[in-house]
């Protein structure tokens, strides 16, 4: 525990020093990044130790806040979430140092790095806090510091809008969490998480729903996800990577922690999670498909992956309520492994997106093209991330989805509706998500990196700097390593699952060993696959040794002058699927074609705005503002009357107090 605190102190020190070095941006960045990286490395060691041994460590200090105590504890669940938090934040910080260097003349980087390190500390505290007040305070610091990171380019109007939406969404979510902790604390008689009494089932259900909304807003469940497609594109890329890779996972952490506090789950909780997961997953990837902006596309993919994680948790929970160890182990392990995997590949993809933005100045997919030749490192790492996020073998993304599938395929809860519906929803949605994710990432990679440049920005692209390349290569390597070593990696669940359920530890062990055994076969298959690819590549080279190999233009059906503009664009690539799912997407098509008999300019503009925003939040907030407008007579700007309100309120409170006494 002391090592953990030491690490956090180093991170904080780095941040504090940098805030005073605003005039020397290079030094400020370096010290803050060094603090974040060194601190993370220091703090990550105790996390590994706790995850492997399963022995929790805790610390409790007095804290002069009503109902509060500085009670922190690292158990296996916390450790599991801390590892990606520290790992990804450190890597993204190194990337950010390179990424922000071009801003050093215009922005105060010291302030940015202070909030970055603060966000890192707040995330770590959220995950280890074991007191409701401490949790909420850390949660709020996390939301606020990330708000300042999102609004880095505050002079742009779209960033201001994004920041505002983010701030409001976070606080609506927090309001539900305050209600959650007050109800829980009121029943338990203490805000500490270790004083758990058995909850009546109605209260447990209310708490569960509050947690779904409160934590779901952070995690990005449909329909609480509306802030993601605004905040992620607005933030600098290393911040997007951290927010999407690990910060939204604190929502998942909150949900998992809630499950440990609420006792045996009734069956409908599992359904709720599975359905939320399926809806978030399928709609997330569909909306991603319809986007033109790379970072917005990636933001919707976060919704999709949170959906997959939630499906996994739902399957695990179903196992608890049915007493089926197979479902528990494969569901939770798959879901939680996906938490780590998503942190790695989504972090990687956001960093790659940052390199593209940095080099081409635009994230608009249809304006790019052919940059694989100018940015081979970014292209190669993006390709690895794209294969991983599409859930394709042999990388890590496949393994976690595979485990969830396997859980449902192997489930042994008998026949009838109870067996049918989870199989149908889980398998149906996962397979559809898989197919659509493939469509989305072939679109992203194919249009951005392949073909010919569609604009002069893309023509003059240049490779990212050393810091940025370093971070991307490390994360890409992690995608491969987590896939190849998956039989070992899933052993993390050995100590995590017993924290969530009271299921027999031996049974968990047996199931986990069997899962590991299955993954060994998968790894063998992957290694053979890679071996064969290697061998055939060599043979292929040899085959071409003495052949005539020519280069020519692409077959163009006899056009005199093929143009890069004739290429298929991302919009046209996605069009069949977007049209097929128009019921959900409701893409706005603005076509102006010339009616003349002579050729003239015509244009097509497609725009897919979020249905939840359009049909739930905008009418909802409009209704609310109309309702509240009726109270506007209270606000008239006369200070004397405001003082009267205060005096009256005090008087009423005084009378109430006296009457009670």
């Amino acid at each position: 525990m002391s090592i953990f605190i030491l690490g956090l102190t180093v991170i904080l020190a780095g941040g504090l020093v940098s805030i005073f070095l605003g005039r020397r941006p290079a030094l400020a960045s370096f010290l803050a990044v060094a603090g974040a990286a060194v601190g993370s490395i220091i703090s990550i060691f105790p996390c590994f130790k706790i995850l492997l041994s399963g022995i929790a460590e805790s610390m409790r200090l007095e804290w002069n806040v009503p109902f509060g105590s500085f009670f922190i504890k690292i158990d296996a669940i916390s450790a599991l979430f801390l590892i990606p938090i520290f790992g990804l934040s450190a890597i993204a910080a190194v990337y950010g140092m390179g990424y922000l260097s071009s801003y050093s003349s215009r922005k105060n980087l010291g302030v940015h790095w202070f909030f970055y390190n603060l966000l890192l500390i707040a995330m770590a505290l959220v995950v280890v806090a074991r007191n409701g007040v401490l949790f909420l305070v850390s949660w709020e610091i996390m939301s606020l510091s990330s708000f300042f990171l999102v609004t880095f380019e505050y002079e742009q109007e779209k960033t201001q809008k994004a920041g505002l939406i983010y701030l409001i969404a976070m606080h609506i979510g927090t309001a539900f969490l305050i209600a959650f902790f007050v109800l829980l604390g009121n029943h338990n008689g203490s805000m500490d998480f270790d004083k758990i009494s058995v909850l009546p089932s109605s209260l447990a259900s209310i708490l569960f729903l509050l947690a779904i909304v409160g934590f779901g807003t952070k995690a990005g469940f449909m329909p609480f996800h509306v802030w993601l497609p605004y905040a992620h594109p607005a933030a600098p890329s290393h911040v997007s990577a951290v927010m999407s890779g690990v910060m939204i996972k604190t929502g998942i952490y909150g949900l998992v922690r809630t499950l440990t506090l609420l006792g045996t789950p009734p069956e409908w909780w599992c359904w709720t999670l599975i359905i939320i997961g399926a809806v978030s997953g399928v709609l997330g990837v569909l909306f991603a498909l319809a986007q033109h902006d790379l970072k917005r596309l990636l933001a919707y993919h976060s919704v999709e992956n949170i959906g997959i994680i939630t499906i996994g948790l739902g399957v695990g929970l179903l196992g608890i309520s049915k007493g089926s160890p197979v479902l528990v182990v494969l569901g939770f392990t798959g879901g939680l492994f996906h938490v780590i995997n998503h942190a790695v590949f989504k972090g990687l993809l956001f960093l790659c997106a940052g390199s593209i933005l940095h080099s081409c100045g635009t994230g608009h997919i249809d304006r790019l093209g052919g940059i694989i030749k100018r940015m081979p490192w970014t292209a190669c790492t993006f390709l690895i991330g794209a294969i991983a996020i599409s859930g394709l073998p042999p990388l890590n993304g496949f393994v976690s989805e595979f485990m969830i599938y396997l859980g449902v395929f192997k489930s042994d809860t008998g026949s009838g509706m109870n067996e049918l519906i989870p199989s149908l929803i889980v398998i149906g949605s996962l397979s559809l998500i898989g197919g659509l994710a493939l469509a989305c990432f072939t679109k992203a990679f194919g249009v951005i990196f392949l073909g010919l440049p569609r604009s002069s920005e893309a023509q003059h692209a240049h490779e990212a700097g050393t810091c940025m390349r370093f971070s991307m290569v490390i994360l890409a390597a992690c995608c491969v390593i987590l896939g190849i070593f998956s039989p070992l990696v899933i052993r993390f669940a050995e100590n995590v699952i017993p924290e969530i359920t009271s299921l027999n530890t031996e049974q968990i062990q047996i199931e986990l060993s069997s899962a590991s055994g299955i993954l060994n076969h998968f790894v063998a298959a992957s290694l053979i696959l890679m071996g064969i690819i290697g061998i055939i590549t060599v043979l292929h080279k040899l085959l071409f040794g003495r052949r005539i190999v020519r280069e020519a233009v692409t077959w163009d059906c006899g056009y005199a002058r093929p143009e890069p503009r004739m290429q298929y664009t991302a919009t046209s690539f996605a069009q069949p699927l977007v049209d097929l799912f128009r019921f959900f997407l409701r893409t706005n098509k603005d076509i102006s074609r010339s009616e003349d008999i002579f050729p003239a300019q015509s244009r097509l503009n497609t725009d897919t705005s979020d249905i939840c925003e359009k049909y739930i939040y905008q009418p909802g907030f409009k209704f609310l503002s109309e309702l509240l407008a009726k109270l506007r007579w209270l606000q008239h700007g006369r200070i004397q009357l405001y003082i009267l309100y205060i005096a009256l309120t005090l008087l009423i409170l005084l009378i109430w107090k006296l009457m009670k006494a």
Partner: protein
Amino acid sequence: MIFLKILNTVLALITAPLLLGIINRTKAFFAGRNGQPLLQPYYDIWKLLNKGSVYSIATSRIFRIGPVVGFSVVLIAAAIVPFGGLPVLLDFQGDLILFAYLFGLSRFFTVLMAMDTASSFEGMGASREVTFSALTEPALLIGLAAIAKYTGYVSLAQIFSSINFDAWLNAAPAFILIGFAFLIVFLSENSRIPVDDPNTHLELTMIHEVMILDHSGPDLAIILYSAAMKMWLLGAILTGIVIPVHSDNVFLNVSAALLFMLLLAVLTGIIESSMARLRLLHVPQLLIGAATLSVLALILILR
């Protein structure tokens, strides 16, 4: 035992292109032509392997590594799928999921290769490929889940060895539904009519053929061969479900399966001769129909 395991893979490697030959002969018969020799696909592959190559100046490394990945994937898949009750080299729980996703990997690279040429025709094909495959995936996986739930096993070899005549008698409706669903998956994944027409050389109407328009020489040979293998492997899955022959005589089992594969190829030829390709807008309906059949089968099995 190891001999039989290797035989299972080698059989696929040797006989796969023959399916294309049979289909072509069947189509020739219906068209009243003499048709090409039965072994023409082998000659084609051999001819292409000995040729030089032309690469587009727009392409990158992806274009060159794509065929290699596609071929490696079918090799691994050939080690997973059992044919006619033969044992397989790679057999583990959940191998059917890996099987479905391996083809996803090869599709990923095929689509990227098409995008790499900067041709709008190939982009069109790629776009259609991802659209239709996204809809076939649920049909395939839910169908596999249905047979997995019925037999209680999650590896292809075990599943197929426990589908016997009794199983068919017990759950004939479900098996028939899965059979039809997988037939549609088979036709769609292998780019046959009514989803795609392998014969037209009009770029606007094609899917698979248009994606490989810019490939030539050995690369094209590898792609053709991988496509034939894919047809064989998906056919083997269909065979495993439809032909419940599990006698002690390996020769008899394999012959029965081979006979079914022959019939499947002839059936494909008949379908191609007797109906036109569906309009592209109607293809999703067919594929969603296949998914619905799989769902119904799962409902029948788990009711």
